[in-house]
């Protein structure tokens, strides 16, 4: 970002919009990663409440840089070693990735593994759920690692898979725990039903439903619906997840990584209604 060449504006912007965009760029430096995409998002707004909504959403958006991830790794390793008192002899960190595709959980575990004390070794870390499930032995503590927990549905499914596999292998006396970089507050409802300890460095609220005053909510929900109306409803057999997957209303991104589909699609959905490709602040494969 600091060394990136930024382009001049292609069009003349009116004073009020310019100053508002300037203030947003000044407050959220990460917007300079994709300034044209951010301008396109702003240009998508045709009412004042829509513009105010973008400003409000950016104010609560959690964007983590690689430096922030370093800090998160230290917080999580400290929590697991000193609060949960986990020992390297029988603890295994397992990424929740369960196929052969690159995954955020693997990137997370990669940043995590060198934050522990000297007693921890490579064998304490598995970069896929399958590897962990097939190699963990009796009396183990299994810490499932995911970069982001949205609804909690995915982690619930992964735990069910892991428990099945361990039971098939007749592995006894194991404990499962969960750690994540960030998680949605409302996912606690699901996580609490799993009867496992969990820890996340960041807890996030829904961007509109849990962050905006009740008296103003309706107008901003309408504004978001109007903005999403401009996006293509379906592409590559994927349906537009209004307000993010299962209306998660997430506002979270890790620098240079695939954005979760729990995030409002105006930040990452690549097509407009007329099937034109649109530049987006974030990308998702």
């Amino acid at each position, binding site marked *: *970002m*600091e*060394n990136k*060449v*930024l*382009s*001049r*504006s292609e069009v*003349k*912007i009116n*004073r009020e919009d*310019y*100053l508002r*965009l*300037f203030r*947003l*760029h*000044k407050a959220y*430096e990460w*917007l*300079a990663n994709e*300034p044209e995409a*951010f*301008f396109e998002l702003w240009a998508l707004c045709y009412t004042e409440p829509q513009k105010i909504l973008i400003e409000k959403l950016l104010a609560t958006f959690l964007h983590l840089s690689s430096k922030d991830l370093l800090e998160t790794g230290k917080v999580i390793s400290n929590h697991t070693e000193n609060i949960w008192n986990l020992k390297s002899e029988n603890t295994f960190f397992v990424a929740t990735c369960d196929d052969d595709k690159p995954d955020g959980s693997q990137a997370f575990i990669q940043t995590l593994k060198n934050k522990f004390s000297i007693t921890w070794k490579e064998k304490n870390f598995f970069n896929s759920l399958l590897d962990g499930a097939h190699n963990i032995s009796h009396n183990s503590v299994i810490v499932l690692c995911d970069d982001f927990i949205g609804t909690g549905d995915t982690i619930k499914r992964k735990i069910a898979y892991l428990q099945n596999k361990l039971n098939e292998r007749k592995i006894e006396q194991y404990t499962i725990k969960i750690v994540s970089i960030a998680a949605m507050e409302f996912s606690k409802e699901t996580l609490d039903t799993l009867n496992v300890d969990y820890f996340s460095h960041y807890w996030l609220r829904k961007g509109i439903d849990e962050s905006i005053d009740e008296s103003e909510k309706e107008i901003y929900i309408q504004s978001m619906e109007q903005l999403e109306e401009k996006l293509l409803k379906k592409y590559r057999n994927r349906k537009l997840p209004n307000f993010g997957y299962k209306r998660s209303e997430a506002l979270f991104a890790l620098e240079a990584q695939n954005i979760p589909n729990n995030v409002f699609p105006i930040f990452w959905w690549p097509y407009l209604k007329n099937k034109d490709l649109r530049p987006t602040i974030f990308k998702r494969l």
Partner: protein
Amino acid sequence: MKIFSEDILLLKELQILKTLDIYLLHEKFQLSPAQVARSIIKLEKNKILILNENEITLTEYGSMWLIGNRDFLYLEKRDYTWKKPIGLIQRNLAINAPFSPKRKSLDKRIYKLIEGEK
């Protein structure tokens, strides 16, 4: 401190005007909000200017800094990054691939000139 073209433009204007409305940078040079924000963040951090609402003002230190660094700012040869105009970008041809121009878009007069006609 990495210096970009927008920094030079901003500093030149600031050296003349001492205080300026940041929208002027867009009106005059079409600098984007991202360019101006990054420039101001950097220069403010280095105490060369201060931002007050929508105006930036050169500090006393900034004034001396400009004089002391005038060679570096205004005389140093910089690498330029040329933007690729999207409308002119064509698909890359493989090495030794045959190529022929679109004959319909050629100015036919060139053929007459080649054949020696006037």
